[in-house]
Structures are given as C-alpha cells and as structure tokens.
C-alpha cells in the first residue's frame, strides 16, 4: 500500500466517523470507544462500512478493539486485510 493509498484509506474512515457522529474534529489516534465518542451500535456500523468500502470481511478472528479503536488502528487493520487477500 502506497503512502497516498494509506492516506486515502484514513480519510475515508475519518470522514465516515465524522459524518456519523456529532464531534467537531477527530485525531487519527483518538480512542473512539474509551472516550465514549461512539456507542456499541456504531462499532457494527463501522465494521459494515469498512467491509463494503474496502471489499474485506471482518471475521471472528478480527474481533479485537486494537483493530477498531481509532482511525489509525482501523486503517492499519484494513491494510493488513487487503495485503492478506492479495
């Protein structure tokens, strides 16, 4: 994944989060769940969004907050899944 592609992935994820919840800004390392920014339903929405947007499937083995806790974490997870699928 090129640097440009990584940035694009982050932007897509960041925009989805910002479009979905009412916060003024979001740093790429902000912890979404610990800070209470989002609820549990949003976790499933975010999962569905990245599955659709990046043509990946989130499975039981991927269930770890480390994969979804922030924009950076989610972006890295997407990158790993895409590399794995190639």
């Amino acid at each position, binding site marked *: 994944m090129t640097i440009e592609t990584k940035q694009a992935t982050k932007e897509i994820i960041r925009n989805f989060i910002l479009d979905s*919840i009412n916060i003024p800004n979001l740093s790429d390392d902000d912890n979404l769940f610990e800070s209470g920014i989002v609820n*549990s339903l949003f976790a499933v929405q975010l*999962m569905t969004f990245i599955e659709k947007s990046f043509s990946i499937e989130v499975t*039981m083995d991927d269930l770890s907050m480390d994969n979804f806790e922030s924009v950076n974490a989610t972006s890295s997870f997407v990158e790993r899944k895409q590399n794995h699928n190639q």
Partner: protein
Amino acid sequence: MISLLTENQKAHYEEFKEFIKANVEPYASKWDYNQEMPDDFISLLAKSGYLGSNIPTEFGGKGWDFVTFGLLNEAVGRGISSLTDLLTIQAMVSMTLLKWGSKEQKDRWLNPLAKGEIIGAFALTEPNVGSAIQNLETSFKKKGNNYILNGRKRWTSYGEKADLFLVFGKDEDKSMACLLPKDSPGLEISPIKNMMGFRAAHMAQLNFHDIEIPESNIVGKPGFALSHVASIGLHYGRISTSCSASGLLRACFEESVIYSSQRKIGKKLVGDEGMIRTLIARMGTDLHAASLLCYSACKAEDEHTSNVYEKVQMAKYFTSRAVVRAASDAVQIQGANGCHESSPAARYYRDSKIMEIIEGTTQIHERMLGKTFVEKAAKLIKAKI
C-alpha cells in the same frame, strides 16, 4: 412496492402467498387458540426450505436475497405472527453464526439449521433484564478449558421447541455468547403459556445450573458478545419483525376492507360511512409506507450499505407502531364482532402489540433513531453556519 421487485422476487412472493393461503390461513386461529405450532407443519415449512431461506447454499440454505427473505416474512406475517417468530429466531441464530461462528461451528450447525432439521433460539432476555442488556445476570466462569454457565432466561421464543440456544451472559465485565444444545446437562426448559399475543410461539423460561460449556462453543470473542454478536442477531431479527408486522398490517387492511364491503348498517354498507373510510385510508397508506420502508431496509441489507442499521430500525419502528393502530382500527370497524375470537381481528389486535416489544421496544428505537437524526441535523446546521 411490487413494481420494485425483480421477476424472480415477484414469483417467490406469489409462491409464499399461495403456501400461506393453503397451509396456514385455514389453521391459524386454531393454532393460536391451542397455543401450539404443530410439528408436522414445522416439518412442512422446513421441507419448503423456508427456515433456511437466507442461509448461503454452501451451508444447505436457499441463499435468497434479503428482499426475498422480507417477502417471505411478510407473507407469513399475513397468516400468523407466531409463525414469523420462528423465521425470526431461526434467522437471528443462523445469521449470527454465519458472521461470527468459527469454521467448526458453521460446519456443524448451519446445515441442519438451514434445512430446518433443528430449531434455533436466541436467549438474551432475562427475568430482571430486558432492554438494558449490558446488565445481564447470566454468568460464565472460566474453569480449565471450559466455562460454567449459570443463570436464567425468560421470554425465549420457541424455547420450548428449540434444539440449539444462542445464550448471552457475562464473565465478570466481559460479555459472552455460547451455543447450548438442548440436551446439555443442567439445562431446564419451562414453557410459558397464556401470552397475550404470539400465543403459538412456544415461549419458554430457561434455567442454567452449572452447565459446562466447551470453549469451542463460545461464539465470537469474550467482550464482544453484546456489541457485535447480539447486535447482528437483533439486526436480522428486526428485518424479520418489520416485514412480519407489514404482513400483519396487510391482514388488518384486507380484513377491514372485506368486512366494510359486506356488513350493513341499515341500508348502507359499513364502508360507505366516511368515518370508516377514514380508518381504512390511514390503514392503506400506512401499509404502503410500511412496504416501502421494509423494501428499502432489505435492499440496503442486500447492498451491505453502512446505513442499513438505521434503515432497518426505521422499518421496525414504523411498521410495529402502524400495525398497532391498524389492528385497533380493524377491531373498531367490526365492533363487537371484532372482539370475539371468531374474528381474526381479535388475534391481529393481540399479536400487533407484541411487535412493539420484540427485537427492541418502540422506546429503544426512538432513543437510537432520535440520536441519529439529531446528530445528523446538528452537523447540517453547523455546516451552514
């Protein structure tokens, strides 16, 4: 709504309606009265593939799209709500396993679920815990490679008939879910009779006494059972319930129109009265809106769009409230006749209220949708400032 369907979906819908007309409608009142969904009819349903309609063909299901699944639920809902409850819980367990089950769990359980050889049940609600599922009292305690399950579940649809339970609880602060076969030592199943509605849905209370759960029966991962596992199950439950409520709404509408065009008040037909037409106008318009919302929700599921949860919640919220109004009006149109069990309107009235309770109450939907709409509106307003 029909005009939005593909030819294949239309053909399936006609097949479903014919099946219900022949095999359900003549017996629905009897099943409701006896509080019994006969085993031979469940076998017929299974043989038709309707219990695995949305499970992929690789696991023995029909692999139909969710619009077709919605049409099936609508058609069945027209016949009797207790039966759609069976489709609901079968889909909740199957689709949850499909998403979060291990390979071994999928290989073992999905095929018999798809073929209707076994019935699944979703054991979430407890005597002391309804909507606030984060407060579950059912406990999982780690013991070697196993977990020990203790606790109680209540209002478990088809709990009396189920062969496999998807049970939710907690290990300290971590939410847990597991598969529990019916023959597990320590599982006690007590039927609950005399429900107001869904009387043939074989409701049960489950008691768990020191049941050993092998780690291989845990679904998902500890800590994710409520946020991810239950959420997926409830999502599919809402799709099924929305469409079921839409089918019940159609039943209320059709029953009211037929009654109004036959029953006379003096020399006039009931349907000639403006006040009755007002009720039917509202019912017919609600029916059309419900159909479109259900179609939109099912289509979003087929397209796997990220707003699918919101669309499904809207469909569930609207249809369950609309059918309560419609069933009340259907009884009102029939007067005393509608208050007696010889009229299906009485059953529709009792069943309709349950729609507002199951898979998230009306108030829970208002909280979720209200939050979504307010946050979206707030962002739009900020963008304009």
